[in-house]
C-alpha cells in the first residue's frame, strides 16, 4: 500500500466513525447493510479470492450461526456473548466437514461449488422441518428498544449495531490485509494460481485449503450472529436461500475478487445502487414487481462483461493506488 492509499484509508475510516453523528436513521441503516455485505464479502473472499475455492453456499454459515444464537436465546435465555462461541464452533465444524469431504475426494471447481449449494439447500429444507426452531413459520426474538448499548447482549440503538458492524468489517479488513502478506496468504495464492505446481513445491494443499474454508466459515458465523439480533426474525426460506449466498458473493465479484478493497467497494456500489433504484421507481410511481431486480441483473451483466476483474483494480489504477495482487 503506498502513501496515497494510506491517507485515503485514514480519511475513509474517520468518515465512517463520524457518520452516525450526522446521518439520518435511513442513511445509517443503509450504511450498516453496506458494512454487513463488506464483511461477509471479505469472509467469502478468503476462500475464493485468496485460496481459489468457489463457494456458492455461504448462506449456510450465516443461517446456522444465526439460528444457533437465536435458539439459545429463545429457549434458554442465553445471550449472544455465549452463543457466538457455539455459532463459530458449529460453522467451523460444518466448513471443515464440507472441506474435508471435498478435498479428500478430489472435488474441485464447479463440482465443489455445487457441493456447497447442496449442503446449504439440504440444511434449508431441514430447518423447514425443525419445529423446535420454528420451522417454516420462523423464529422470533423479543425486540427490545434500549437507549443504552448492551454489547454483550447485542441490544441497543441502531448506532450500536452500526459500530459493531464497522468494528467487524474493519477487523476483517485488517485480518485479510495481514493474511495476504503472511505465509498462509502466499500459499493460498500459489494454490489459487496452480494447485499442482503448489503441491510440487511441497505445499500441503489439503491443509491450507482446509484453513481457508474454516477461517471463512468462522468469519461468516459472526455475520450470522449479528444478523439474528439485528433483524430479530429468522426464516429458513429466507436466510438459507441460494439468493442469500449470491448476495454475499456479488460484492466481491463486482468489486474485485482477491483484492482487499473489492468486497468493500462492491458492497457499497451494489447496496447504494439497489436503494437508489428503489427510490427512483417509487418516485416515478412504478409498482411492478421485478422491475428493480431486472435493472440489477442488467447492471451486473454490464459490469461482468466490461470489467472482468471488478471495479476496484480499474479504479485503483486510475487513482494511482496500485494494489499489489
Amino acid at each position, binding site marked *: 500500500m503506498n502513501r496515497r492509499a494510506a491517507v485515503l484509508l485514514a480519511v475513509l475510516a474517520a468518515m465512517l466513525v463520524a457518520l452516525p453523528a450526522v446521518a439520518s436513521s435511513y442513511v445509517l441503516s443503509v450504511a450498516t447493510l453496506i458494512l454487513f455485505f463488506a464483511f461477509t464479502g471479505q469472509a467469502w473472499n478468503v476462500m*475464493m479470492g485468496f485460496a481459489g475455492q*468457489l463457494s*456458492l453456499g455461504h448462506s449456510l454459515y450465516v443461517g446456522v450461526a444465526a439460528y444457533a444464537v437465536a435458539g439459545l436465546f429463545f429457549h434458554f435465555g442465553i445471550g449472544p456473548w455465549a452463543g457466538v462461541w457455539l455459532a463459530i464452533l458449529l460453522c467451523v465444524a460444518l466448513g471443515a466437514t464440507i472441506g474435508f*469431504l471435498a478435498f479428500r*475426494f*478430489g*472435488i474441485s*471447481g*464447479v*463440482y465443489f*461449488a*455445487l*457441493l456447497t*449449494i*447442496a*449442503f446449504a*439447500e*439440504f440444511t434449508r*429444507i*431441514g430447518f*423447514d*422441518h425443525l419445529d423446535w426452531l420454528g420451522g*417454516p413459520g420462523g423464529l422470533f426474538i423479543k425486540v427490545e428498544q434500549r437507549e443504552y448499548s448492551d454489547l454483550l447482549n447485542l441490544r441497543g440503538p441502531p448506532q450500536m449495531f452500526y459500530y459493531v458492524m464497522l468494528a467487524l468489517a474493519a477487523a476483517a479488513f485488517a485480518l485479510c490485509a495481514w493474511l495476504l502478506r503472511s505465509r498462509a496468504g502466499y500459499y493460498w495464492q500459489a494454490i489459487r494460481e496452480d494447485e499442482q505446481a503448489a503441491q510440487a513445491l511441497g505445499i500441503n494443499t489439503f491443509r491450507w485449503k482446509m484453513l481457508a474454508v474454516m477461517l471463512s466459515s468462522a468469519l461468516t458465523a459472526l455475520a450470522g450472529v449479528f444478523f439474528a439480533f439485528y433483524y430479530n426474525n429468522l426464516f429458513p426460506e429466507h436466510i438459507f436461500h*441460494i*439468493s442469500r449466498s*449470491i448476495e454475499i458473493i456479488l460484492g466481491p*465479484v463486482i468489486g474485485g*475478487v482477491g483484492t482487499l478493497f473489492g468486497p468493500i467497494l462492491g458492497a457499497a456500489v451494489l447496496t447504494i445502487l439497489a436503494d437508489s433504484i428503489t427510490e427512483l421507481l417509487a418516485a416515478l410511481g412504478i409498482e*411492478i*414487481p*421485478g*422491475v*428493480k*431486480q*431486472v435493472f*440489477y*441483473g*442488467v447492471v*451486473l*451483466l454490464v459490469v*461482468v*462483461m466490461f470489467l*472482468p476483474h471488478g471495479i476496484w483494480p480499474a479504479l485503483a489504477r486510475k487513482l494511482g493506488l496500485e494494489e499489489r495482487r
Partner: protein
Amino acid sequence: MPIELVVNVVIAGVLTGLVYGLMALGLSVIFGVVRVVNFAHGEMMTIAMYATVVLFASLQLDPFLAVVPVGAAFFVFGYALQAGLINPFITRPEHSQFMLLLAVAIVMVNGLLMVFGPDARNVQVDYQLESYAIGPILFDKARVYASATAVAASAALFAFFKFTRTGKAIRACADNYLGAKVVGLNVRRYYALTFGLGSACVAVAGCMMILLVDVSPVLGPAYTLLAFVIVIVGGLGSMAGALLGGVLIGVSEALAGLFIQPSAKSMFSFALLILVLLLRPQGLLGRKP
C-alpha cells in the same frame, strides 16, 4: 399401505423423471461441449412453460404442437446467447462465467415476474384427467404422452450426435478444443449450435412439464438446482446419465412425497447429490475426469 398405490406412485415418478431427464440433458450437453455451466437453465425452462401457456390461451395450441414453435424459438435464442454473450467468456475463469449466467437468470426470473405476476399458471386439456388402466395400475395419459415425447426428443438428439457429420464435429470440439481448431472446425460456431440444441431440449421439456405442474416465476431457480442435481447424479456430460438421473430423482421425489412429506422431497435429492459427489464424483454413468 397398499402395494398398488406404491407402484402407481413409482410409475408416475418414472414418467415425470423422463421429462426431468430431457431438461437435464440440455444442461449436460451444454456443459459437456462448451464447458460452461448454464446457471439460467431452470429459468429457461420456466420461460418455455409460460410460452406454452400463452400459445394455449391465445391460439388453443395443444402443448404437444407447441413443442415445434417453442423448440425452434429456443434454438435460435440459445444460439444467439452463446454467440453473442457467452463465447467471449469461454476463456475466462469459472466464477466469471457463473456471474454472467447468473445475471441472465436474474433478468429472466424477474422479467417473467413483471410480465406474468407471481401467480401460478397452467394449461387445462381434457386428457390430463384421463388414464390408461392395466389391472389396478394406472398410467396418466398426460404423463405417458409427455414422457414419450421426452424420450423421442432425447433419442433424436442421441442420433444427431452419433450419426450426423455436424454431431461428430461437435463431439470433436468437446473432446479436444485445440485439436478441433487445428483440423479447421469453427469451434465457436459449434458451441453456439450446441447451446441452441441444449436450449431446444429444455424448451421441449418445458412444453411437457406444463401438463404436469403449474408454473410460477420462482420455479426457475428451483429447476436450475434440480437440473444440476440430476446431471451430477447421472454424470455431467453423459447423455444417458442425464436420463437415468432424471428417472432416479423423479422416483425419489415421488416416494419421498408418499412416505414422508411432499415439502421434504428435494431434501432427498440433495442428500443423493451429496452422496454421489462423495462416492462417485463423476456421476453414475460419467467417465473418470
